[in-house]
């Protein structure tokens, strides 16, 4: 029996990964949209986080990269106006920004030469030992509605900025 002949499910895309993460975390909101722009155009804009994030997120006044790895990829940022430090995991089509009490995820996947699936996650993930997380579950779920509004505005902002460029 040749195991390689058996059917196998498709590999997960970065948007799939973000969608799964959002479904597993009580305190975050997630939205995905099809953007009528090529993947490279979308990621050239979104991935340039120092420039892009303050333009589409009305709560962010500035975003500064404070550390980069050997390849020049950002690994730490500071987000204004609270000067909130965040660690960042970033590569082509994927960006996860993590602070102790906040989480932002952005992912993109080319659908065809002119369309890109974009996913955006944001919110307060329940972190800590099991009992603490269980205690936080209910209040975080209540906050999720607010995060949904924030994520919708961010995605609308990205759509608007892409149309301007």
């Amino acid at each position: 029996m040749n195991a390689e002949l058996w059917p196998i499910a498709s590999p997960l895309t970065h948007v799939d990964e973000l969608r799964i993460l959002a479904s597993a975390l009580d305190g975050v909101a997630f939205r995905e949209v099809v953007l009528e722009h090529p993947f490279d155009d979308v990621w050239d804009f979104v991935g340039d986080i120092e420039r892009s994030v303050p333009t589409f997120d009305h709560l962010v006044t500035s975003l500064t990269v404070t550390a980069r790895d050997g390849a020049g990829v950002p690994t730490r940022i500071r987000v204004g106006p609270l000067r909130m430090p965040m660690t960042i995991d970033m590569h082509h089509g994927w960006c996860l920004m993590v602070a102790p009490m906040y989480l932002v995820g952005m992912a993109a996947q080319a659908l065809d030469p002119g369309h890109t699936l974009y996913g955006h996650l944001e919110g307060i993930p329940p972190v800590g030992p099991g009992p603490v997380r269980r205690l936080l579950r209910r209040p975080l779920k209540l906050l999720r509605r607010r995060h949904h509004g924030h994520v919708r505005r961010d995605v609308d902002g990205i759509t608007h900025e892409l149309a301007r460029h």
Partner: protein
Amino acid sequence: MRRAQRGDAAAMVGIIRELSPYVRRLCGPIALDRADDAVQETMIVVLRNLGSLREPRALYGWVRRIAVRQAVRQVTGHHDVALDGLTELDERGDDPFERCTTAWDVERLLADLPPQQRAVLVLRYLEDMSEHDVADILGIELGTVKSRANRARTAMTQKWAEQR
């Protein structure tokens, strides 16, 4: 693993990336054209319940159980997967998959079986598990498994004969 259990998002992404190739291999033959959905549902259940796993070495066995049940559920649409009626493979008989020379052959044979039987085939052929372990994972009595031996293999053998 411990970081993911505490809700560390970056570690949870690491768990998704580590486990998904294995989950894709389990869900593919059971859920077939619904396999991609089954993989995502499995990963969500795994992440939401990761904190309940006390022994990290048991991770893959625990994930296997979730994946197989989610894959069957995805195609049957049942929240409580009815696993009674699963069949066992006859150790003495031929392996019908030996005759398959292409992925299309394998998929065609699997597509004519109920998802519960496909789950048994995956555990016996791909995972090389014993009858006892298959019964344990699927939550049915070993006696029930044994009493229904051969059904999947017989069906596949007949199908193969019809197709050739």
